[in-house]
């Protein structure tokens, strides 16, 4: 019951928020919530640390932006196109990297993301260092105008809620159960007849698709796609978001994404200190609060219930 009340309150807050807070900031938070959830699907549920996850986000932004600007597609088709293209990229990356687990998966995905970075730097349609600028906010279904910040906010909100619901369905499906079982004991799952590699590749495909969607939304919100979106820096930030909030919890990375976007917004004025503070908080989380904010909160509530 409390859960439904909580969801209802959240829904009301989300609907009235743009009248009190700058919609661009809210939409940026939503994009990173979806992006962080896609990362959570891999590390939190499949135990795969994708160290170059920004490649899906950044390339998704380019593809979504390009489809709207040069392709003249409506906004929902641009989102869909970016998600599908990135799912395909995720599948290919999975084919290359899923055979090596754990730590090597992290190193390989990092290297592949750097490869994609240089590839896009060279590709003609990305305009090199300038990036894709003045991306139009195409009409929804070709008829509904979403060029104003407020109308785009409700579209991004709806797509984000759908994406997070999709994520929720994945992790609570039998497929999600298998993923978690592989994370906890790969050998046993293999002996039960499952092929872990296949599940990992599918997880990466789905996760990359969600990240690509997040990237395309970001391209429509800020109307720009640059190489920074797929830089290693963004990959690091998304890891920080997921870990700070709490891996393997539904809400953790979502909370983490909101906190880090707001934190970055505030810290921007402190220049280099922003990096130092981010690194220090990151380190404290790894050393002392590995369950993250939401994870620690859940553990605390559980202890209280157990005591009562």
């Amino acid at each position: 019951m409390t859960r439904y009340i909580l969801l209802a309150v959240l829904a009301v807050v989300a609907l009235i928020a743009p009248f009190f807070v700058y919609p661009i900031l809210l939409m940026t938070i939503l994009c990173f919530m979806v992006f962080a959830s896609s990362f959570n699907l891999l590390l939190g549920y499949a135990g795969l640390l994708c160290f170059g996850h920004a490649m899906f986000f950044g390339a998704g932004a380019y593809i979504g932006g390009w489809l709207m600007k040069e392709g003249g597609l409506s906004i929902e088709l641009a989102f869909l196109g970016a998600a599908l293209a990135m799912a395909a990229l995720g599948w290919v990356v999975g084919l290359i990297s899923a055979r090596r687990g754990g730590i090597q998966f992290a190193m390989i995905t990092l290297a592949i993301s750097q490869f994609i970075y240089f590839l896009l730097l060279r590709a003609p349609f990305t305009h090199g260092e300038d990036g894709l600028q003045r991306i139009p906010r195409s009409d929804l279904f070709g008829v509904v105008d979403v060029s104003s910040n407020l109308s785009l906010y409700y579209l991004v909100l709806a797509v984000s809620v759908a994406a997070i619901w999709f994520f929720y369905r994945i992790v609570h499906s039998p497929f999600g159960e298998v993923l978690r079982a592989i994370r906890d004991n790969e050998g046993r799952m293999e002996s039960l007849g499952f092929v872990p590699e296949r599940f990992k590749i599918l997880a990466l495909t789905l996760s990359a698709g969600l990240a690509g969607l997040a990237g395309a939304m970001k391209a429509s919100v800020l109307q720009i796609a640059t190489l920074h979106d797929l830089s290693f820096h963004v990959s690091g930030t998304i890891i920080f978001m997921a870990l700070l909030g709490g891996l393997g919890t539904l809400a953790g990375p979502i909370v983490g994404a909101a906190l880090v976007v707001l934190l970055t917004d505030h810290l921007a004025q402190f220049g280099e200190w922003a990096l130092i503070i981010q690194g220090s908080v990151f380190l404290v989380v790894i050393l002392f609060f590995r369950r993250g904010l939401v994870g620690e909160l859940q553990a605390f509530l559980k202890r209280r219930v157990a005591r009562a």
Partner: protein
Amino acid sequence: MFDHISIQLLLGQLLIGLINGSFYAMLSLGLAIIFGLIHVVNFAHGAQYMLGAFVALLLLNHLGIPYWGALFIAPVVVGAVGLLMEQTILKPLRHLDHLYSLLATFAAVLIMEGLMRLEFGSTGLPYASPLPGGINLGFMFLPWYRGWVVVFSLVVCIATWLLIEKTKLGAYLRAANERPEIVESFGINVPRMMSLTYAFGVGLAGLGGVLAAPIYQVSPSMGSNLMIVIFAVVVIGGMGSILGAILTGYLIGIVEGLTKVFYPEASNLAIFVIMIVALILRPNGLFSSPESSR
């Protein structure tokens, strides 16, 4: 189609490739030692290399200690920083999933780079070459310093490899990696040995930084792009394979140099293409035995 390529260009790029390869080999060697013996993926390796270059620069500018002194002092200083990191952030994570120590060293990179940028700005600082001049080989001009880097790093790589594969100390290290409890029962302090191994690998990164200072500009971000290449080298060579890391390092440097001659647009991509092809053809790494890949 290659008539426009002169022998000078080819040899010049080969030399640059060999020099880059020297750095790749030295750094991936340190990374492979640390991973192979204590199972930490040291993401801070690039930042520690950067630290080595800065220590050399500070020694010169503030204490007047020249390059040849820095060559000995800087690796010790950087190794000590490594030891401190090991004691404070890696030790508590030793019994957890290796992903945590990777992330901890990554967080340390953010802090180190941020602090250095705060202090020194982000533009590159010059470090005068200790061996000015060079020799005309007829087909090309070889600066003395670059020749020194190639020879010295080769000596360091071979010496380190011999130390680990052929000496008693190396045997203890390898044994402690496989069966720590048995080595401990011989009266050897395994945790301390592991800490010192990390410090040694980090010291190698610092040494690389000193070597790099006169060639590349000294800047806080000099290590971060290199780091990703080093990761690729270690993946290609096979994780934890020390000889593999050295050989792959030189190989990648040379291939990268050759790509610049024949297909300059792809020179940044070459390393990663090789990595992907190597992963498909030899999933365990070029130089690793199948059982050591797990």
